[in-house]
Structure formats: C-alpha cells, structure tokens
C-alpha cells in the first residue's frame, strides 16, 4: 500500500492538473472551503447533486432537440440551468460549453445545437471522470491515515 506522503503528492499533482487544464476554476476551491466538521461530505454531496441534475438536463436537451419543431426557448432554459450549476461548482469547461451552446440557441441553429450538445456531453463525461478520480484519491489518502 502506498505511503501517505506518496498519496498526498499524487492527490496534489492531480488537483493541480485539473486547474491547469481548465477543468476546474476557483469556485471549486470556494466549495471545498465551505466544507467543515458540521458537514464533512459537503463537496461530495454537491457534486453528486450536480451529476444527477446534469444527467437529467442532458437527457431533456436531447429530447427537446429531437422534436419536429424545436422549442429553442426551452432548449436555452435547460442550457442556462446547466451553465448555472456548472459555474457554481467550478466546472469551467462544462460552463464554457454551455456558453457556446446558448449562442447557437440564439441563432436557432439546430445543427449547431446538436454539435454543442455532443460537445457538452463530452465535457460533462470528462468532468465526471475527473471528479470521481479526485474523490477516489482523497478517499485513499483518508484511509491511509492522511
């Protein structure tokens, strides 16, 4: 089993990479700073909510864009929601994908929206993997006594 120091370093390096590569921004730090003894699982809880809510929104978006006559206001409203929650947890790349998406909504460009949805799904998937890895590393460190 890896020593505490090694795990600590792995976690630190991984965390740094997430910020360097733009997956996370300062708002994630804000989130971590909110966690305390009264709610030691706060970050995981918020992120889990984010995963659930995002999945719902992505599925609604796919449905909305499949319609014969696309309701762009509805599509925009869903993207606005996702933009808000990704911004609130510091999921920077997801947030940016939402911003691009909204531009295509404004133009009522279905092709563009479909491409954006795909991109959004990709960014979301990446973010989910990264955060799950982050939590796993934190858990390993805790279990090793760090």
């Amino acid at each position, binding site marked *: 089993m890896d020593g505490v120091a090694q795990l600590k370093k792995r976690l630190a390096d991984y965390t740094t990479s997430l910020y360097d590569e733009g997956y996370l921004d300062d*708002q994630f730090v*804000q989130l971590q*700073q909110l966690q305390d003894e009264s709610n030691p699982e706060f970050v995981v*809880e918020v992120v889990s*909510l984010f995963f659930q809510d995002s999945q719902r929104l992505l599925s609604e978006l796919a449905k909305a864009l499949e319609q014969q006559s696309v309701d762009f206001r509805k599509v925009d409203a869903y993207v606005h*929601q996702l*933009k*808000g*929650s990704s911004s*609130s947890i510091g999921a920077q790349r997801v947030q940016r994908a939402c911003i691009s998406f909204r531009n295509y909504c404004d133009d009522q460009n279905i092709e563009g929206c479909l491409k954006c949805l795909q991109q959004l799904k990709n960014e979301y998937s990446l973010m989910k993997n990264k955060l799950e890895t982050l939590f796993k590393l934190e858990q390993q460190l805790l279990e090793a006594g760090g």
Partner: protein
Amino acid sequence: MDASSSSSSCSSSSKGMMDYGNEPHVLAVDDNIIDRKLVEKLLKNSSCKVTTAENGLRALEYLGLGDDQKNNLETMGSKVNLIITDYCMPGMTGYDLLKKVKESNAMKEVPVVIMSSENIPTRINKCLEEGAQMFMLKPLKQSDVKKLRCQLMKRS
C-alpha cells in the same frame, strides 16, 4: 460605510440592534438545486438560520403572502429577517417576488437581495429601484455572504 473587511467579524455595536439574537432567519429562493444547497451552506456558515424555497410561489406561501392566504396582519411579525432570491426563475422571477414582498404591509420592511449569474446594469437598476437591498453576482462566495451579513447587522 465600508463592510469590506470580510476577514474580521462584524463586531461593531451590534448589541441590541439585532432582535433576532445572533441568528438571522433567511429565506433563500432558487430554482436550481445545486445553487440552493450552496447558498444554504454559505448562509449557515455565516450563522444564519435558513429556509429554502424552489420558486417564488412557494416563497410567498411560506411568507404567508400566497394567493389563497388571507393577508393576515396577525401572522408572526416577520417570519424572516432577509430574503435572498435568484433573478432568473421560471414563472415568477426574483423581480416579481421582490415586488410582491415590497407591496405587502407585513413584509415590506424585510430586506430582499437579488442574485444573478448575469451582470446586466438595467436589470440591476430595476431591482434596486424596486427596493432590493443588494444585487449579488453568482456564483456566490463566502466573502459575498460575509459582506451581506455585515450590512444586515448595520441596519437598525
């Protein structure tokens, strides 16, 4: 008037000014579940008691201002000491909620803070003109809420 020293506690002459002891009761309204959880924690970390509502209608019901509720002056003085609401909500916007609160005899003295992810001056001015205490940009940070708390304490 400067409430910017967010690191120090607001220890100015607060004795006697707060009739809610040290825990103001805040009603936080937001249709986004993540934002509700976040604002709740931010407020709790600033020693506030928090009730959340997912839309304007629920908020009004909680305040006793719902359509089917009699505007009963007997209903508890002021249930809440502050209302903080998102601007962009489906159905009733934060602005609509602000107006309803300010129009009610029972609640018009309660400060209302509007939050929004969009920095639109006309929107901000509209809210301030309608009587909003403050306009805050999302995503909220702990320092924003500390500043708000200070402002709240300084109100007589």
